[in-house]
C-alpha cells in the first residue's frame, strides 16, 4: 500500500496539471466529493463562431463541500481561458466570483450562483453573456487534487505582484519570484484580504498559478508516458462527456500553449451591496471588449 499511494497521488495530480494546467482553485476548508473534476462540452459549441484553431475553456473552482456534487454548488474561481493552438498563445479572463449579473431564468444574482442553479451549462451561459465568448468546454474542479498536483510537479514558482504574509509561509510571499510548496500555492490562489484589490488581485493570482503550473507541466511533457498517465487519471477520476481520444487531444492542446504567451486580465468593476450581499458590479463594457479582442484568435491584442 505504501508503495502505491504516491503513484495514485501522482496520477490524480497529473490529471489536473495535464488537462488544463489551467484552474487555480479557490479551496474550501475540507472536502470529500464524488469526483475530483468534471469536463463537459458546452451544448451549443457548434454554434460558436470562432476559428477552428481556437478553443475556449471555462475553468471553474467549485466550493463543493463533503458530500456535495462538484457541479452543483457555487463556482468560486472563474477563469475563461482561450487557447490558440496555432500560435501557442492564450488568454485568461478572470471574473470575480461576486460579479452581479443576470442569470438566465433566475434573475440577478452573483455569477457564481449559476453553477448551483444550472450546473456547467448555465455557468457557461452566464459567463458568455457577460464576456461575449461562449466556451467550448467547462472544466470544473474542487481542490482535492490541487496540492497533490503541485507536489507531483515539484512545487511551482510564481511571480507575485504584491508582498504579503500568511502563516503557511513564514518567510512571507515576496513581490516577484516565489517558489511555493503545495499548501503555499493553494493559499496563493485563495487569499484576498492582504491584497490591495481583494477579489481582483486574487483572480490575477489564480491566473499566475495557472501559468506556473503550465510551465512545470511543459517541462515534463517530453517525458515518455507523462501525458498518457495524466489523461488516464482523468478518464478514471473525472466526470466527463468526452471520449478518451478527445481528452487526449485536449490535454495535448492545453500543454502546447506557451506560458509566456498566456496573458491574463481580470474584469474590473465597483463593489457594493445588493441587499445584504457584497457584490461586484462588473464592468460589462470592459468584459465585452476583452471578449471581442480575444474571441477570434484567443489573444489579447489590446491589453486589459
Amino acid at each position, binding site marked *: 500500500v505504501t508503495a502505491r499511494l504516491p503513484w495514485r497521488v501522482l496520477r490524480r495530480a497529473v490529471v489536473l496539471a495535464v488537462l488544463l494546467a489551467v484552474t487555480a482553485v479557490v479551496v474550501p476548508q475540507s472536502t470529500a466529493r464524488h469526483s475530483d473534476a468534471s469536463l463537459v*462540452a458546452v451544448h451549443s*459549441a*457548434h454554434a460558436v463562431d470562432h476559428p*477552428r*484553431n*481556437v*478553443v475556449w475553456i471555462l475553468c471553474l473552482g467549485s466550493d463543493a463541500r463533503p458530500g456535495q456534487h462538484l457541479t452543483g454548488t457555487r463556482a468560486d474561481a472563474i477563469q475563461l481561458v482561450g487557447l490558440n*493552438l*496555432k500560435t*501557442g498563445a492564450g488568454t485568461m479572463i478572470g471574473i470575480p466570483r461576486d460579479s452581479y449579473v443576470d442569470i438566465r431564468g433566475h434573475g440577478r444574482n452573483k455569477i457564481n450562483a449559476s453553477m448551483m442553479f444550472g450546473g456547467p451549462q448555465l455557468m457557461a451561459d452566464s459567463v458568455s453573456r457577460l464576456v461575449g465568448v461562449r466556451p*467550448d468546454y467547462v472544466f470544473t474542479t474542487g481542490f482535492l487534487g490541487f496540492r497533490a498536483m503541485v507536489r507531483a510537479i515539484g512545487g511551482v514558482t510564481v511571480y507575485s505582484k504584491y508582498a504579503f504574509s500568511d502563516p503557511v509561509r513564514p518567510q512571507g510571499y515576496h513581490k516577484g519570484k516565489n517558489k511555493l510548496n503545495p499548501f503555499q500555492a493553494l493559499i496563493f490562489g485563495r487569499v484576498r484580504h492582504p491584497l490591495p484589490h481583494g477579489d481582483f488581485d486574487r483572480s490575477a493570482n489564480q491566473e499566475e498559478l495557472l501559468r506556473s503550473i503550465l510551465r512545470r507541466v511543459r517541462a515534463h511533457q*517530453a517525458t*515518455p*508516458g*507523462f*501525458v*498518457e*498517465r495524466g*489523461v*488516464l487519471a482523468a*478518464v*478514471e477520476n473525472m466526470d466527463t462527456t*468526452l*471520449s*478518451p*481520444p*478527445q481528452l*487526449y*487531444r*485536449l490535454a*495535448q*492542446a492545453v500543454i*502546447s500553449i506557451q506560458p509566456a504567451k498566456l496573458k491574463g486580465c481580470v474584469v474590473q468593476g465597483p463593489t457594493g451591496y445588493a441587499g445584504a450581499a457584497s457584490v461586484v458590479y462588473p464592468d460589462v463594457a470592459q468584459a465585452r471588449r476583452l471578449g471581442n479582442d480575444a474571441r477570434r484568435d484567443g489573444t489579447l491584442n489590446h491589453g486589459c
Partner: protein
Amino acid sequence: VHATARTRVTALLALPLLVIPTACTSDQSAPNHARQTVASTPVMRGSVPFRVEVTHVAGKLATKRRAVLAAHVRRTLTWYVDSAFLRTDYPAARFAGAARPFARTLASAVRRDRALLTNAPLARSTRSVRATHRTAYLSVLAPHGSPAGVTAAVDLVFAVDRGDRPAQRVELEGRLLLTPAHGGGWRIFGYDLDRSQRPVRSAS
C-alpha cells in the same frame, strides 16, 4: 565547414475532432489510407527496417494487443515516411499524399511546414533517399484495455543521395501524436519535431 541546419516545427490538434465524437476504434483495424499508400507509393530500396515499439502504457494493454497496436501505428508512420522521403519519383516529386496521415484540420499547418516535414527542399537535386535509422517508441493511453492515444517518440535519419553534389544527412526527431481515426487506423493530430540537415561527409 558546414553548419548543421536545425529547425523545429510544431503543430497540434484538430479542434473539430474534439467536439465531434470520435469512434473509439479497436486496434484490430488498420488505417485504410495507410494500406493504400504503402501499397501504391513506390519506395526506395535499401532502407533499414522501421522499428516501432510500445514502451510505456498508461492503463492496461495485453502483450498481443501491444504488438497489434505497434503494427498499426507503424503503418501510419510508414505512410508518412514513404510519402515524404522515400519516394522514387525524384526530382519531380510533389509529395502528394504526405499529408494524408495527418488530421484534415492540420492540412494548412502541414502545407506550411512542408519544407520541414518532407524532402521538398532537396527534391530537385535528389537522386535517391534511404532511411539509415528509423525508430518510434510509443507511449500509449489505454483506458479500459483499449488504446485511445499515442505519443510516438520518433527518430528518423535519411541519407539523401544528390549525385555529384554533397549527399545530405537529414534527421527528424521529436514527437508525433496520434489518436484512432474514423473508419479504423491511426491518424496524426499533432507533431513537435526538430529537423536537422548536414552533409554526410561531415557526419561523425
